[in-house]
Every structure is written in structure tokens, then in C-alpha cells.
């Protein structure tokens, strides 16, 4: 399968504010239909990186290419490829939802008719069609967040940049936002998503870059990152039958790194637990083990972050 076309390429981005080097040589690429997460604690340099990617901030070094074209603070037409959703709500509270969307749609160069059509579509996507004519200052935080995201989608960008879009959002709205991002990615949009929520990065992102103190510490798929720190998934099997015989059978499987019986259950260390699980259950049946419960524990990005930086993600 050919690699997806690179929509965003960042090479060796650097930015210094007085004595503080906020971004130190950050490089990553995002392909069409790919969601790339920048995962790191507050102050890691995520927003500064995004500001340079959007052309809001001139980098001290490095370059940004959007759809193969260099993007600087002086670029104009190239910006049409970018949809930007800032971390803070960036909407006009004394305009209604439709007016907010229509203004930015027109600013992105959509004709009046096309702007109206896209506004209707986006209102439906973000679930605000019924509230379109209400001033946004009367909206709940979640509704405002959804509108904030909707503005970034109006002109069908090739690259959608979301800077911590779920901060301060209630669980229901947060889930709606994550579902929207998943849907957009499946439609071929390249998404750059920054967050300090590990669960969001794990759920949404095809690849993740772990950033701390302005540096990209590591990047890759979730599995690649986990593998990077040498951790394996754990599986705990309970059931009736010869546990030791079953454990011996499991140990002969190539994906199983270790198998032992502890406290009346078989403890396994495996590669890719979710992939190997059907094969394991079949092997258990062959070994005469009637499985009554299965518990999978996968090493998460929290552990990866801890391993790479020596501190917890939310420190």
C-alpha cells in the first residue's frame, strides 16, 4: 500500500522566546487521512509548534510545508489548505452561530451561495442547526466548543489543526468532538491534534509525537511507542482445568513472551494482546481449559511518557 501523500511536513522547527527555547528542532509529517497527535504536558511547546505550522509565528529555524508548499507568516493563498481550531474559544459571542460561520466562510473566500450551503452542512455536523440563530453567548461551553471546531471545517481544508479542543468540555460534548474528528479523518482529512489527555491520543491518533520541553522525544504508532520502551501486553486467564499444562502450551506460541500460573490464574506477557487473543482462546480449549474470565492490560502512553521523560504526563 503506497504511503499517503504528505499534507504537512515540519522540518527542524525551532523557536526561542528570550531565554526560553520553546521548540527545539521538532520534525514530523502527516499524510492525508492520518491523525497525528502531539502529546505532552502544558508548556511542552505544542501550541508554539502549532502557531508556526499555521504561519502565525515565524520560526527561528526550520520550515513548514503544507501540501508541498512552504508556509511562512507572509503566505496568503497557502493558508486556504489549513483549518485552524485554537485552544481558546475563538468565536464572536454577540453574533449568532450562523453569522459566526458565515463570516469565516466568506473570509476563506467562499462565494455567498457556497458559504450558505457550507454553513448549513457544518451546522448539521456540529449539531447546532436548531440553535443557529441564537447569539453564541447563550450557548453552553460544549456548544461553543463545537462551533469553534465547526469554523475550522467550513472551507474543507486539507489539514485540520486542533489545539487541545476538549479542554474544559463536558464528557458528552467531548465524546461528540472525538467522534467528529474520527469521522473527518476517515474522510481523508489530515489532522494535527494536540492534547495532554493520553486517552484522546490513544483513541484518535494513527501516530503520536511525544513532546516535552520543546523536544519531540519519540514518535510512531501507539504500538511502536510502546515497543520502544520494551513493554508487552499482559493477559490474565482464569478457568477450570490444568492451568500448568495450558500455560506450557501458551509458552510455545511465538507471540507469547512468558507464561506462568499465579494465584489460580495464568499470567501471560504477549505482543499485541488484542491480536493474539482469539488464538490464545483456541489454544486454551485445545489444552482442556474452560476459560471463565480474560483480563487484558496493555502498557499505555502514560508509561511511555514516564519512561521517556522521567515524569508523569500530568506533572
Amino acid at each position, binding site marked *: 500500500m503506497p504511503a499517503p501523500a504528505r499534507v504537512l511536513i515540519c522540518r527542524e522547527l525551532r523557536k526561542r522566546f528570550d531565554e526560553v527555547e520553546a521548540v527545539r528542532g521538532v520534525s514530523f509529517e502527516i499524510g492525508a487521512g492520518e491523525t497525528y497527535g502531539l502529546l505532552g504536558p502544558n508548556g511542552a511547546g505544542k501550541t508554539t509548534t502549532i*502557531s508556526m505550522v*499555521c*504561519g*502565525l*509565528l*515565524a520560526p527561528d529555524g526550520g520550515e513548514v510545508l503544507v501540501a508541498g508548499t512552504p508556509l511562512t*507568516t507572509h503566505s*496568503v*493563498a*497557502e*493558508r*486556504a489548505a*489549513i483549518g*485552524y481550531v*485554537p485552544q*481558546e*474559544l*475563538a*468565536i*464572536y459571542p*454577540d*453574533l449568532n452561530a450562523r*453569522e459566526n460561520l458565515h*463570516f*469565516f466562510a*466568506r*473570509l*476563506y*473566500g467562499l462565494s455567498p451561495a457556497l458559504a450558505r450551503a457550507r454553513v448549513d452542512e457544518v451546522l448539521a455536523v456540529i449539531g447546532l442547526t436548531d440553535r443557529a440563530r441564537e447569539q453564541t453567548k447563550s450557548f453552553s461551553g460544549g456548544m461553543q466548543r463545537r462551533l469553534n471546531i465547526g*469554523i475550522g471545517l467550513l472551507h474543507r481544508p486539507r489539514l485540520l489543526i486542533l489545539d487541545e479542543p476538549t479542554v474544559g468540555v463536558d464528557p458528552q460534548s467531548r465524546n461528540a468532538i472525538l467522534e467528529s474528528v474520527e469521522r473527518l479523518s476517515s474522510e481523508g482529512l489530515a489532522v494535527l491534534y494536540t492534547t495532554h489527555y493520553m486517552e484522546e491520543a490513544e483513541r484518535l491518533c494513527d501516530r503520536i509525537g511525544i513532546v516535552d520541553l520543546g523536544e519531540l522525544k519519540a514518535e510512531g504508532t501507539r504500538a511502536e511507542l510502546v515497543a520502544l520502551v520494551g513493554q508487552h501486553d499482559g493477559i490474565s486467564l482464569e478457568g477450570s482445568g490444568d492451568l500448568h499444562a495450558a500455560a506450557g502450551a501458551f509458552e510455545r506460541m511465538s507471540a507469547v513472551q512468558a507464561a506462568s500460573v499465579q494465584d489460580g490464574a495464568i499470567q501471560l506477557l504477549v505482543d499485541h494482546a488484542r491480536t493474539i487473543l482469539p488464538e490464545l482462546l483456541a489454544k486454551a480449549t485445545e489444552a482442556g481449559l474452560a476459560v471463565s474470565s480474560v483480563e487484558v492490560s496493555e502498557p499505555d502512553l502514560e508509561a511511555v511518557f514516564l519512561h521517556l521523560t522521567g515524569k508523569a504526563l500530568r506533572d
Partner: protein
Amino acid sequence: MTSTRAALLILGKDLRQRVRDRSALLVAIVVPLVLASIFGLIFHNAIGGRVTFTFGLVDQDHGAAAVAFRQQVLAPLERNGLITVVSEPTLAAGRHAADSRKVSATFVLPPGFSTAIGNGGQTAVTVIGSVDSSIGSAVAHSIAQSFGDRLDTIRIAAAAAGGTPVDRSQIASAPPPISVADISARSRQLDAGTFYAAGMAVFFVFFTVQFGISSILEERRDGTLARMLVAPVRSSTVLGGKLLTSIVLGTASMAVLALATHLLLGAHWGNPLGVGILIVTGVLAATCVMALVATLARTPDQAGAWQSMVALVLGMLGGTFFPLAQAGGVLAALSLATPQAWFLRGIENLTGGAGPSAVFGPAAAIVAFAVVTGSIAFMRAGRLLAR
């Protein structure tokens, strides 16, 4: 999207916001109109307004000196429109007229007034003042005193000439007690209604234009500026849209105020084209001055505070509350360092039916302010629009 369309789009959005934000309407129209009305009423007689007093006259003498007082002293002032004289038949009627505020004061010429004057005897013009018209009473006293001084002069002259009794012709030939000079072009002055209409309009336009240019800082704070700057438009287009908002709001505010004060307060702004030139240049200067202040500030609150201070100081110095230009001296010279003073001077130049050319000088001075402050603001605009 072209830069012009994008700037107009920003203008449309800003105007929609301002229409919904009632404070803009208050600052741009309501407050200046109310203040112009109040100041115009309070200072009607103090600034350029025609001062007129009504005086009563009780003539119990009917002699030559009484006729001379009436015809040679009071009549000229009456002809010049400074006073109105009402004859009262009796002393009681004259006193009642003063007590009931019908007149500011009543002159009483006692019986034997002319005889006493002719013989060099003691007599007096009595002035009964109204307690509610201290200025009018003072003017009446001054007129009576002046008449007495003239008589003394004539008596002394007559005594020096051999004691000839004073006659009516001598009184008539003496200079009048109060001279009324024509108002020259040099001391030309607006009536109170027009002065405060123009003064308040140009004072508040410095606040009104803030709704455009200063909203850049508000949008930066609220994140919407970043959103606009990520869009495929030049940052100069965003700045242009904001400047356009200031100019449209300021021009609309001043035009509405000029029309409203003309219709409601009877202000005489003068030639419409001349007024238009002054309004446009005045708004331009206000926008440039406020833009410069905005580029110095870091936050919208800071900009608002500094701009208010600058608008207030320039407004006071420019004579929008008091006609400093009429005062002369250092203060009048200093006031010319403000666009407001030149604006008011331009409006003054239009009094008496002058054409648009009468405002070319003041308009050029106002444009000079706009060019200087606007150039500095433009050089600093990058800071305001830093992406």
C-alpha cells in the same frame, strides 16, 4: 477573496457587532447629543449668545434730563438689541415688575430730577433690581452710574466755564455710557448651541473611532484575530478593515450629530460641503491618533484607558468644552496643537455663510495631524497585528 472584499467583510461584521453593542450608539450619538443640549442651554448667554435685559422705567420727572436719559442713554442700547425698556406708570408698579421678575431692574427718575440737575442740586437715578437677575441689576447700575458720571463731567466743565446751568443739549452731546462694537472677523464666535454641538461631536468622535481600531486588541485577546490571520487574507487587510470601521463609525456619528443638533438644537454648522470636509478630516485624524495610542498598548483595557486620557486631554486643550481660542495667550496657542481646535476653527470660519474654501486651512492642519500620527501608527502596526 480580494483585499477590498475582505476589508468590507470585516467592516460589515464589526458594524453588526457595534449595532448590537448599545454602548457604541450611546458614545457615538446619545451622550454627545445630550451633553451638547445641556451645555448649550447652560452657557447660552455666556458663549456668543445675544445678552438681552428688560428694564422698567418709572419717570416721575418728565423733565429735560429724564427725556435725555430715555432718548440719549437707553434708546441707543435698545436699538442695538441689548436692552428692552418697559415704561411703568408708578413706583409701585416698577417695584412690582422687578419683584415679579418681569424686568431685570427698574430705573426710577424721581420728581424734580431735571430741575436738580439744572441747578446743580442733589438727585439720583434709583435702580430697583430683581433678586433673580443679579447680572441684569449690575448692568442697570452700571448704566445709571455711567449717566451720573457724564453729568458730573458736564457740571465740572460748566463750572469751569463760569457756572452755566446744565442743559439738555450738553447731556446729549456727551459720549454714550456704553459703546457697542461690531463683532469683527478676528473675534468671530459661534453661538452656544453650535459651539457645543460641534465641540461635543469632535470630542466624542475620538471615543467612537476606538470601536474600530481598538477592537484589534480585543480580537487578539479573544483569539478571533489569530483565526482571521490564519485565513488566506493579508494582515494589512485586517488592519484596513478595522480602520474602515473606525472611519465609518466616526463619520456616521458626526454626520448624525450635525443633522440632529441642527434640527433639534438649532445649531448653525454652516456650508454642508465645508462641514463635510471638516468631518471627514476630523474623523481621519481621530482614527490615526487613536491607532497610534493602540499600537503602544499591550491589552485592550490599557488601550482603552490611554485612549480615553488622550481624547480627554486633547478635547480639553482643543477647547471643545470652553472656547479657549477666544481666550488668547499661551492656552490659545497650545490649543492649536490639537485637531479639535482646528475643527472648531473651521466651523467658526463657516459662520456668516462662508463657502467650503473657508475650511481649507483648518482642514489642511487636521490632515497634517492625521499624516503624522498615522505614519507613526503604520510603522508600529506590525506589533499590533503580530501573528
